């Protein structure tokens, strides 16, 4: 599973990071650091919760 960030929508709420700071690392400004990231096996639950926590709907999971 991968997670993708729509950089045009991420506005630094950092709610994904509040769910799991390792899966959703932030840059110095507090915005999500990556464009897409691989989710390690077994981490699908927190990845989904992190994506669901985004008020901008900027995160999507790619199976």
């Amino acid at each position, binding site marked *: 599973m991968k997670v993708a960030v729509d950089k045009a929508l991420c506005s*630094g709420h950092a709610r994904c990071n509040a769910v799991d700071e390792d899966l959703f690392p932030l840059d*110095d400004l507090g915005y999500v650091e990556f464009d897409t990231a691989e989710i390690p096996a077994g981490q699908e639950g927190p990845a989904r919760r992190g994506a*669901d926590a985004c*008020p*901008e709907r900027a995160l999507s999971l790619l199976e």
Partner: protein
Amino acid sequence: MTLTDHRIVGTGTVEEAGDRFEALRAKQRIVKVTEPDRTYWMVLDHDLMRECLQNPAVFSSEVVTPLNPDPPFKMIPIQLDPPGHTPWRQHLARYFSPKQMAKLRPRIEERTRELVTEIKEKGSCDYLAEFALQVPTVVFLEVMGLPVEELPKFLEWEALALAPSPDGTFDADLQVGGIFSVIGYFQGELARMRETGERGDNLLSQMLEWEIDGVAPTDDELINCCLLLFLAGLDTVAMSLSYSMHHLATHEADRKHVAATVEAGESMDDIVEELLRFYAVPEIGRKLAQDTEIDGNQLVAGDLILFPLVSGNRDDALSPGADHVDFNRGPAPHLGFGGGPHRCIGSHLARLEMKIALQGWHELIPDYGLAPGAEPRAYWGNVHGMFGLHLAGFGEE
């Protein structure tokens, strides 16, 4: 249809501040409101609110409240649209990022402990004046790098700039007086730092090193930005805390849940998030930059739009049963801090202040209630507020 009996500015019970939108949202996502002095569109629905706030090209921040449709000057950066907004935002974001917040924690904890200890000894308090306004003001001084001795002065200016008359309106002369005092103070500080070359690990002195599109901002621009931080970060936090504490004082099961959570040393995150969702205090505005159609309504360039954030936050589309507080709700990605490029830059700081303030209170005062005979009155406008919040039923009685 046009609504004629809704008012942006008013007073009433604490519950009414957020309940005023429930019946309206059940009927439509957007409604045109005609008041005697102004006309604007009001967005009530969660998804529509998010889509509008994410689209600054159509919904411009040139105007940020229908109460002030022709602002004489632009507040930086809240009234700038991208791309002009972006470099300012990037400079400021460093100081308000989640990583930066850890530095502020000890100061907030210390001040919270001092205040709650004093209050507990007294056995009653006006939570708003004696606690809720104090904490964010101390934090503001800390972020800016100003000495804590300036607190009384800033509290006084804050009262002038942000405290309404008994009818919920603001006396423009008092407001201007408070604001000019703040401007004068920052003018003096920036001039002094320019002169002495003094730089520290704080926002005020580091601003002098900024470049915006390769050019150093003028002192007027920097002062404008400082003033925005002052106006946006104080009563919003104070009122979010007061609405939260009013809720807990009047809902025994929720109060016990919070006290038990604190006693067990468990995370305050879900509690704070739910209170922020249900009692979102700001109502924010935008101005149409071009004609657009929403649900069969023709909106025309120049029209004003109001987004009462609490209305979107209590929409069942966001989370089932959104019309009541539920600390076990789980994540509800609400818009209590707005959305889009202007998402409240102080959101991480506000959350931290709320967590520490509620935790520190309940550690020392787990049980309390409204003081007898002192039913608090609320007001609303750009921010939902209260005229006071008298709590009692604790301490050495």
